[in-house]
């Protein structure tokens, strides 16, 4: 895992004084939404002109009494496209028709703070890190190749949860970065894009209970 110096300072800032004391709360979450890749030129080249697609996943979080929470989870993004040829970053993208599939699976941990914990509407912020696994498979006339790699990642997120009782809904936006994960070959090298992160917007279903 690769954490940058900004992270400890951010965590310090999140520990707000004066939060009301409460019992711990465990939540199980399911996520579904949209992921837009930072390597947008590369993604647009091999996909259907878009740089993102659906993502889903899940996780668990534990809220300490004052509103501080820790969370862990995983999401996956998978999309099919085709191999292309691009001579350089300004050249036209020439589609070749050989199938290609990319799967990006970040596994992450988050620490953060939930404001107004205990109310119906709970905004929250968090930062964290983890590992992103990347797998690319393609097939050129029976010659199938797979490239997989894992890289440390860090992220920041903001969200809001709504509801009372055990079942809640929420929405969350996050930004993640996994530098030096790609860019060693293919169109990501042509476009000089090495970050496997991006922006995600997901809806959440939460089942929570007090411990």
């Amino acid at each position, binding site marked *: 895992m690769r954490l940058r110096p900004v992270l400890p300072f951010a965590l310090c800032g999140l520990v707000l004084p004066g939060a009301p004391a409460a019992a711990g709360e465990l939540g199980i979450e399911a996520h579904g939404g949209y992921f837009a890749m930072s390597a947008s030129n590369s993604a647009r080249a091999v996909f259907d002109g878009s740089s993102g697609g659906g993502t889903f996943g899940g996780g668990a979080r534990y809220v300490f009494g004052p509103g501080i929470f820790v969370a862990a989870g995983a999401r996956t993004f998978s999309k099919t496209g085709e*191999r292309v040829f691009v001579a350089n970053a300004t050249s*036209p993208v020439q589609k070749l028709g050989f199938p290609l599939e990319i799967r990006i699976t970040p596994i992450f941990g988050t620490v953060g703070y939930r404001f107004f914990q205990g109310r119906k509407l709970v905004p929250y912020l968090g930062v964290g890190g983890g590992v992103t696994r990347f797998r690319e498979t*393609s097939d050129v006339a029976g010659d199938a190749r797979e490239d997989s790699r894992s890289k440390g990642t860090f992220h920041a997120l903001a969200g809001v949860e709504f509801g009372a009782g055990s079942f809640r809904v929420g929405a969350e936006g996050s930004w993640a970065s996994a530098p030096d994960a790609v860019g060693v070959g293919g169109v990501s090298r042509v476009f000089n894009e090495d970050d496997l992160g991006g922006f995600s917007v997901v809806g959440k279903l939460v089942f929570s209970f007090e411990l």
Partner: protein
Amino acid sequence: MPRLGRALVLASLPLVAAGSWTLRAGGQDDPRPAFVASDAGTYAVRPAPPRARVRPGELIVAFRGAADGRTVERALRQAGIPAARRGRVGARYLATVDEQVGLERSLERLRSMDEVDYAEPNGLVRKSVPATFTPNDPRFNIQWNFSLVGAERMWGIQKGSSGVAVAVLDTGIAFEDYADPRTGQQFRRALDWEGTEFLPGFDFVNNDSHANDDEFHGTHVASTVAQATNNSLSFAGLAFDCALMPVKVLDGDGFGTFFDVAEGIDYAANFSEGGERPVKVINLSLGGESSSEDVRRAVDRAFANGVVVVAAAGNEDKGSIDFPAALPNVIAVGAVDALKLRAPYSNRGPELSVVAPGGNCDRNDSGNAFGADCVWQQGPHPEFVFLGRYDVFISLGLEGTSMASPHVAALAALLVSQGITDPRSVRAAIEQTAERLGGAPAGGRNDEYGHGLIQPAKALSGLGFNQDQF
């Protein structure tokens, strides 16, 4: 004045007539007999014997859900199966058949039983392998040059598209049966064009629409591009599903003018059929030391129209590239031998783009049965051509950058067929994927080999998100 490339000719195994003999041209423009080779005989590509598709004596038998152990045991016994192993899931069994009953009879009995869901031989599978295509043309095994560039794997990916045409600007192509009313010359279509599509060409030397070959160079060059393939006859061509356009700009002695070359380029690049311009590649196996603004502008016009122009680097073993190969919008092609070494005649220079097999008829490093590492294709019989006859064809061996250039032109046509239509991208795909030779660094080039030896399959495979060509 543009002229033919080095023309060292070996001829054997006539396709139509004459015995077994060989011609050799010692100089650039003056082919003359040099030695005689023995008849090389007939060579057939034998297919490998078929492998068994099932494991002998074994059946897979699945019973319907209601069948209990006793029912299964009785059914197997009745089918002549003394032993069976149950699978991990469901009532599936791998059954060993009694040899005396036989697999077919056991299978028949099982399939007639109500309690049997299905029964089938235990088939064999094999690892998935990259697609390749081995043509059945009997002299394909002589074409060491196609093996050198990985043609079989290339054909597994792409064989060309009839909507993509290569214009061969040369001495013409033996593409039609035609009696010239002006000269009385009888031209005949070469035998191995079965299924090959020819677009209407033009003869700029004689100013008519019959661009027939009154030499042998153009037919040989065109045959490397798209000789009929997998038709159990003669040799193969690299982009055999692409169309050809014969454009005659060189006379029967192999000479032409810049004006005619420029005319030929414009004709090919602007040829329209059904609202489409099918000529995507122009091959120029010709060149000279002087330059021409007229030709340069014609090349630039073709390039702007999306046409890839490929030309021979020249055969003088000198440190400069011939014109028009040296033009920036032309892919200049040098030659290597069967050992991937620069052919002793191939020109060098900073404009050299790539190299391809051009042959060395003085050697037989490939060990081919014709005894010389020429580039072998069909062609008019040179001795009959000297006599003014254009109706006898043979297996013709030539060497020169003229022979290397059509390898690259064919690759360009295949790339266009695959979807790389921009001429700059075609060139980049060819150069980036070439095998570096002569100590050139990865991603670099040198003046002897340019970016290196073309690797068609790699060029065709394109790029993934984070995967290079493979």
